[in-house]
């Protein structure tokens, strides 16, 4: 189990390309995050969980569906850690597993309205499903 955890930690580091070891725990990323109130694990915690190898908590977090990829955390991090990319990597690890998509084509009809732009469907499928 422990070996698997180390593997997943390395995977997230590779897929994200983010630098968790450079974090100085200033909290600017979380302070900038518009989804903060809806998150169970906050952006700065993703960084420290990755550092500490707390991978299961990251992968089971609801926050991976609440991050809107606005890049405020990336822009404002004084150490160029790129927290959004860690959250993205966690999201990818989850949806790349069989049966773990957060959106299926069957869900779509009831989510549609006449004004909804194609761009919204395209981006949601990219973020929520493989």
């Amino acid at each position, binding site marked *: 189990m422990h070996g698997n955890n180390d593997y997943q930690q390395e995977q997230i580091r*590779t*897929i*994200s*390309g983010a630098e968790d070891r450079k974090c100085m725990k200033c909290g600017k990323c979380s302070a900038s995050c*518009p*989804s903060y109130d*809806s998150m169970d694990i906050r952006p700065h915690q993703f960084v420290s969980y990755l550092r500490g190898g707390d991978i299961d908590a990251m992968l089971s977090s609801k926050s991976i*569906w*609440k991050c*809107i*990829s*606005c*890049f*405020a955390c*990336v*822009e404002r991090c004084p150490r160029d850690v790129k927290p*959004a*990319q860690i959250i*993205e*990597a966690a999201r*990818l690890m989850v949806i790349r597993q069989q049966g773990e998509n*957060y*959106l299926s084509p069957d*869900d779509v009809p009831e*989510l549609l309205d006449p*004004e*909804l*732009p*194609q*761009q*919204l*469907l*395209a*981006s*949601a499928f*990219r*973020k*929520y499903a493989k």
Partner: protein
Amino acid sequence: MVYSYYPGCTLKTKAKELDKNARLCAQALGFTLEEVEAWQCCGAVYPMGTDEIATKLPAVRALHAADEKGQSIVTLCSACHHVLKRVNEDMRQDKDLRTKVNNYIAQEEEPYTYNGEANVLHYLEVLRDQVGFDNLAAKVKNPLAGRKIGAYYGCMLLRPSSVMQFDDPENPTIFEDFIKAIGAEPVVYPYRNECCGGYISLKEKEMAEEMAGKIADNALSKGAEVLITACPLCLYNMDKKTGETLPTVYFTEFLAEALGIKEE
């Protein structure tokens, strides 16, 4: 001046007027948008994962097509612009990705090598840097005098600024300068670069409405009567929440009106 033009999926469907006004205004301002042949949807979000290769290919193909013609590639939709600009930067900087992408392309019917040579411009950057806002102002026939317009930037055009290099990410001015050039009054409000919620509005509608609501309240408190955007998803999210009190329109609509070519 002739540019390659990447409209993207939404400008062919829900946001046709954005596409149409942009082309008409380009003509009036003396530049031409030549649509990239057989372009594919960019995916609407930048694939952040370093091991995401196939999802970056549609952008690469469009970038290469423009470069082959020796033209800069112009976008309108903020999301398309974000994806094209970032993938292009990756192709310049990331040797590993560049190698993998080019391995894919080597298998195509007409193989080529692409190294990020293209120049990606947003339509607003063309107005600012190539046409010039002074020249634009000189071509205005119907100045929108007295209109109080709030610029809604959102995120995709500005961040991350190290790659997007669009404007100051915290205190941008390009939209405000545009608003001045068409004779209206820009209303500056702090939330203009906050996110509208983006794709979250499909599944987490309450979260999205709250985000849009905060932006609209902030703009209204500073006296905005209308917001302008370049992005169909921003427009959808903002209008859904506050369309009645504070409408959001494409910047090209006001541009067309100011140039006297607005189609009824």
